[in-house]
């Protein structure tokens, strides 16, 4: 008995969404709230909402929805927990510069950990956008939907974030190289 064509399965889609976005969402949530527990709770809730009311579309197109829900969930969790919601102030951010010292740089030569460290120095909002972009794979428009910003604002903020990050990265790279060189007898 030849089986007819296979229907589009729903379950693989949602499970794929879990596989695809679990880590990005947690990283994203942590960058916002700084607390791994709250972040996990928010992500858990996000996927529970997904199970209840899955929106249409393929796995990738779930991203804006997931990040938006996760973000809203975080906000309410944070309110509940009476934690401080990070301020959205570029000015504050620009004054901070915890660039790693030479010793730190030497210890953390690995590019990834260096990048993580550097991203952590960015203002919360910029970290959020970077994660949405690079972990969530969201477009500017999706990011705008998820964060409630305008597309233009997203572009500007992301540019600022990346520009800063790039400079800092190049600077630490240079430092690291110098340190390494100085160690050579």
């Amino acid at each position: 008995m030849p089986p007819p064509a296979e229907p589009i399965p729903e379950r693989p889609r949602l499970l794929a969404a879990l596989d695809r976005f679990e880590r990005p969402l947690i990283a994203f949530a942590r960058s916002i709230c700084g607390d791994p527990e709250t972040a996990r709770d928010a992500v858990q809730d996000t996927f529970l909402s997904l199970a209840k009311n899955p929106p249409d579309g393929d796995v990738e197109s779930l991203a804006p929805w997931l990040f938006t829900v996760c973000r809203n969930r975080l906000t309410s969790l944070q309110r509940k927990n009476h934690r401080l919601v990070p301020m959205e102030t570029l000015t504050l951010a620009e004054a901070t510069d915890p660039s790693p010292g030479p010793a730190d740089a030497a210890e953390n030569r690995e590019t990834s950990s260096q990048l993580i460290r550097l991203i952590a120095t960015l203002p919360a909002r910029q970290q959020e956008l970077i994660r949405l972009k690079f972990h969530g794979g969201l477009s500017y428009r999706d990011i705008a939907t998820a964060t409630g910003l305008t597309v233009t604002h997203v572009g500007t903020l992301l540019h600022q974030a990346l520009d800063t990050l790039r400079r800092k990265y190049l600077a630490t790279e240079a430092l690291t190289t110098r340190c390494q060189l100085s160690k050579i007898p």
Partner: protein
Amino acid sequence: MKTEIDFPSADETHVRATAWALGQLTPEETTAFEAEMAANPGLAAYAEEMRQFTHLLATEFPTDESGQLPEASRSHLVSVLSQSVSTPRNFVKRHWKMLSLTTAAAAGIMLTLRPDWINRPETPGLAAGRVLEGATQSESLLFTSVDEAPFKSKEGSNPSDQAAAQDIRNWHFQPGAVRTYTGVSNEEVSHELSRLNSRQPNDLVTRSAAPLTELTAAPAPEPVKRLPVALASSDGRSIPGRGVGRGNSYAYSGSPVQKFRFKLAKPQMQEGKISPTSLTDDFVTGFGNNSGDTLTNTESYKPLPKNVFQEVTQAPLSTFSIDVDTASYANVRRFLNEGQRPPAEAVRLEELVNYFPYEDVPPQDGKPFAVRVDLTNAPWNPAHRLARVSLKGKEIATAQRPASNLVFLVDVSGSMAEPNKLPLVQQSLRLLAERLTENDRVSLVTYAGSTAVVLPSTNGQEKTRILAAIDALSSGGSTNGAGGLSLAYQQAAEHFIKDGVNRVILATDGDFNVGISSHEALLALIQEKAKTGVFLSVLGYGRGNLKDDTMELLADKGNGNYGYIDSLSEARKTLVEQMSGTLVTIAKDVKIQIEFNPAAVKSYRLLGYENRLLAKEDFNDDKKDAGEIGAGHNVTALYEIVPAGAPDAAPVPVVDGLKYQQVPAVTVPKPEPTPAALNGELMNVKLRWKLPAGDTSELLEVPVKDSIIPLDQTGQETRWAAAVAGFAQLLRGEAPPTLTWEMVRQLARSAKGSDPLGYRGEFLQLIDKAESLSR
């Protein structure tokens, strides 16, 4: 070192360069920007650098190492996501095994009655037609099973739904029957059937078998279309024949389900009709899976058959082992608090009832426990009696506890690294450690990939050392439950306290996944140690991975108890408030046998204790293991009793008379009532138990007069037990139709009492949650 301060260059051109690097420009913008770059080498260089950097970031910016959800939450999510189907919420989780089979049977019957569907497989009867096609190889199997089904030949709906439904359930739980289906060689049949099943509400199974009979016997022109119609009539609610067509649940790898994967054409939706294929495309389920390996929720529960009414003339004796476990309640609470309805198998009625402390009078006569029996009307059927048999263990004040030699065996495998696992274990242990005295000894053994004694047996007074060892626990590695267990037993044996409490307390999330994981070997070890006087208690932690049945079995075999700890307050209840009870066994191998008097009782039903039933011969057999009762413990058993002469539901003929054979009428000599049958007694309660160190049992008999106290005048404790029993039946989806959540709520409210520990208040909240999840 001079720090370099970075000011972002935020001019519009550079913003566009970034957007270009990230591929966020529209095609027109891209063209324009690339033209700009061609004219401006500086900009081009910047944009290229940015592109390289974003590429670096995309490849080198990993999601954090710790960025995954804890395993348990994750598997919970996977199961929830897997079940995101258009069926009523949580329905799938409940009874899916039963459903598969029930409706498999129904489908089988349809086959027998509608052979002409073969000829039109593409009509709305498509699903059934397909079943038929597929059935050719397995017809005999299906039909054999159907023949066993008690409802097969009834025309129209049968008035005795309840009994029929029960029979169906009994039938389904026969492992043989399950195998019949898994063994069907034509995978597609079983699969198709299982898919069909998933559309039907549990009410079909649990409330009424009538729709089934109606359905199967109806010579409808479009039988499949009738399916939802019949369903709708089963309880007055209409069931959507087809949901949103999303959320199909599919088998995940590694499960036996996978081989049933089945392909199906897109459903045909017809205006105002339920397309049969639409009934089938929603759900795939597995068969015969008791070990939790279906899907990815790895919690495992053994299916519990329902105790049905027994005719006194046929089964005058009811024998079971007592059960003081309360883990099921905490587990049910966890499910409800997470907004999920627990699987029926996780709801053990007697454990729910026994969770609550009852203010019964402890024994005054030096016996280890006092027995009392209360009779009242069954709330869900006032014509029936509800008998509450309660045992109250003698109380031992914490201060008078005998010396204890405790070995805590703590699972520190990777899966325990969750706030509600190891940290909660540590908190629980701290609570207990504070109560230890100089008479007590405690040691701490951990197990994961390897086992270690992290605290050698230490006097209870050396609190600093004990607490330091508790604080130092940390998790990692895989699990070898048995290796740890033998080490713990060794510790217990080395510091054995004669006439004291010698106990290994295992704290785990239930994962025994490395090494000696054979149940038999493990159980043999535990049983052997229990004989030497070292008992085992099991504390279950966490979720998602809970091997409920394994842990209960371990504790049972080890003469201990099993508690599920989901919160610090639960830890306090299990370990501290009931410490004397949890740790001090006052009687072991406690069995109850009740003989009903046919002069007063027509039939009876034991509520709960499904997995504690004993053969009547086991009662006097001292070699048969049974439950233990601890100091101050309450054990309650409830019977629903149909008094003799009560208007009974019409009796169900188990099979119809044969058409072609006449069986000679056998005259069974009617048992003569003894003089005692006429003395107005309803039943005779017999108890057997052994003292903790004893080998021979003692017997206690309590005759019960048939004197009923109406429900509203009966004691608070009886009403409370009745409320909890009602709750459990509703939650298991096997409540009598007259039993409602509102009834349970009223009853519970009326019996809340002073509730000093707040357990009953919490239960009232659970009623609301359970009700909202049951709609």
